[in-house]
């Protein structure tokens, strides 16, 4: 079974400061890892993903994430947070291999960027 843990319920950060949202995963075999963002009353918006290759993945709106196989982590980062980054962030994992097509999501992290 595949699962994702997002240990913090809410992340508060001052505008202009670095933002980190933590994610650890559990999966058999090689993982495919995704980050999504959800603004109020909206669907999930894709930010970035790790499939293979470089451990540092760059995505939309200045976000990046680092895949760490030994720590089974895929933390989301942004060097300088904006007030508009305030939203709900979801990490998701999909196990490699044929036939597994569902995403397992973490419970989400509310990010609050304080002006």
């Amino acid at each position, binding site marked *: 079974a595949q699962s994702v843990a997002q240990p913090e319920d809410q992340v508060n950060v001052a505008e202009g400061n670095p933002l980190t949202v933590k994610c650890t995963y559990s999966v058999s075999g090689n993982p*495919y890892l*995704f980050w*999504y963002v959800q603004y109020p*009353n*909206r*669907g*999930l*918006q*894709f930010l970035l*993903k790790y*499939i*293979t290759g470089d451990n540092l993945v760059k995505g939309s709106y200045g976000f990046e994430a680092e895949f760490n196989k030994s720590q089974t982590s895929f933390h989301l980062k942004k060097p300088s947070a904006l007030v508009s980054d305030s939203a709900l962030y*979801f990490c*998701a994992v*999909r*196990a*490699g*291999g044929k036939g*597994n*097509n*569902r*995403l*397992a*999501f*973490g*419970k*989400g992290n509310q990010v609050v960027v304080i002006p």
Partner: protein
Amino acid sequence: GAGVSQSPSNKVTEKGKDVELRCDPISGHTALYWYRQSLGQGLEFLIYFQGNSAPDKSGLPSDRFSAERTGGSVSTLTIQRTQQEDSAVYLCASSLVAAGGETQYFGPGTRLLVL
């Protein structure tokens, strides 16, 4: 281009009534997924369609839930004899193909409230 669309955006129904939720995937996407987002449960997989293959129904919570996909495009999720615990946001997603690294793109969701 157009993204995933869902209708209605909001639905209020009485306990015991049947409801139908509609999803229009991105044109050309062969894979379609339904997820449910509820307080305290996070995002959970419901069902997945890929082309003409038999759908993966393993996430459906009870036999009151069913879904179909006509002509390989539009999908309808039906909930019969709704219960209050069915209240949630139902999200539809589509991807180009069903492969591990493919990105799933989400619609805005249908917010269902069962009174």
